[in-house]
């Protein structure tokens, strides 16, 4: 088998986590585990790139052993190899990227292009592509919405804020992440799908050494919401000022569901934003 040089990284996620309407608590689904549209698109892109370049594609998933069957089914659509890196997502943010980089790197699969889905349904931190690129020393082309898999320099279109677009060309080793609309994964032929349904053995399982806990990304920066000016409290003593500032003793309105016409809904949302102070009331300065 020749060295695979293009990898698709996919994450095994709950595609339809329920929310108990009575308690508003999340409920894991029993049957809906699989791979997101974006991850499936990533595999399709990897397959097309491999075909165009005459190399092999490999699909890699960092996840628990239970993911093996789903990965086997996914792999029936064509990659030369499928690898499951046993990994617990609870190990902390960024750790999946680190274990993936370990397997994708020169000591193991030695790939030179990595394709990821741009977003997982698994409420992850979204850091996998960047962490993989960092550890492998690869370039990054993230959030792609169009991609020409033809041979030669790879040209792709990236989504920027404010509906702007950026055309990127990728030379040499890189991590790409794609949106689900970039490509629809081809269907597995019947024979391969049947074989995958019979046994998941085609999926290689790699165990990461538990004694070498994956190294954490060096600097974790917390997400900072945009600031909002709050008037200084006027209470006399420090305690009352802190209470006023934190709103600790104030009544909190519980979430509510409202139904109505779109106009009514828009008015309700505006009114709520005014109540919270995000919008000025008529005749009031922000």
């Amino acid at each position: 088998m020749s060295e695979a040089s293009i990898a698709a990284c996919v994450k095994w996620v709950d595609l339809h986590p329920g929310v108990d309407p009575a308690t508003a608590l999340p409920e894991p689904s029993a049957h809906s585990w699989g791979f997101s549209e974006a991850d499936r698109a990533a595999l399709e892109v990897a397959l097309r790139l491999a075909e165009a370049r005459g190399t092999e594609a490999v699909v890699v998933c960092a996840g628990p052993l239970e993911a093996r069957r789903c990965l086997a089914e996914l792999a029936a659509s064509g990659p030369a190899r499928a690898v499951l890196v046993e990994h617990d997502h609870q190990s902390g943010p960024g750790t999946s990227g680190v274990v993936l980089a370990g397997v994708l790197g020169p000591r193991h699969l030695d790939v030179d292009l990595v394709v990821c889905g741009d977003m997982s349904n698994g409420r992850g931190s979204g850091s996998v592509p960047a962490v993989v690129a960092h550890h492998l020393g690869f370039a990054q082309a993230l959030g792609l919405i169009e991609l020409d898999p033809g041979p030669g320099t790879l040209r792709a279109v990236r989504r920027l804020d404010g509906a702007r677009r950026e055309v990127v060309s990728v030379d040499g080793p890189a991590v790409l992440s794609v949106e689900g609309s970039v490509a629809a994964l081809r269907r597995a032929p019947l024979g391969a799908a049947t074989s995958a349904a019979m046994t998941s053995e085609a999926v290689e399982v790699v165990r990461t050494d538990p004694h070498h806990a994956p190294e954490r990304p060096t600097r974790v920066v917390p997400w900072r919401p945009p600031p909002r000016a709050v008037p200084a409290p006027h209470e006399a003593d420090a305690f009352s000022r802190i209470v006023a500032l934190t709103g600790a003793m104030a009544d909190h309105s519980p979430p509510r569901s409202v139904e109505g016409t779109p106009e009514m809904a828009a008015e309700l949302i505006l009114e709520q934003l005014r109540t919270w102070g995000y919008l000025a009331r008529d005749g009031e300065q922000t």
Partner: protein
Amino acid sequence: MTARGAQGNEVVGPLGPTYPAISFETRMDSVEFRVHERPHIVVDDTICRDCSVRGCITACPANLFIPTSDGGILFNYEQCFECGTCYLVCNEEGAISWSYPEGGHGVVFHSS
């Protein structure tokens, strides 16, 4: 019986108003559909123009057959239960081409 509900107005039972009815959109939002790009049901509404019964309009539980002002039918397959009601009640040969969506797509029930 006095209750209405399809349009989302309040349900009034013989006991008086009981609880707000949900709108049809909210009702359908409770269902998961893994929509495929190929429509699995196609309605030829040139045939519908000659149809006097138009049973599909009231019978389709997903309310997908919408009469247009010029006598046609507007149909969208995306929120379909794949139940079969429409082709069973349709009396005009050839108006509905009915098939199942590609494997893995279409409606997905979870708590039914």
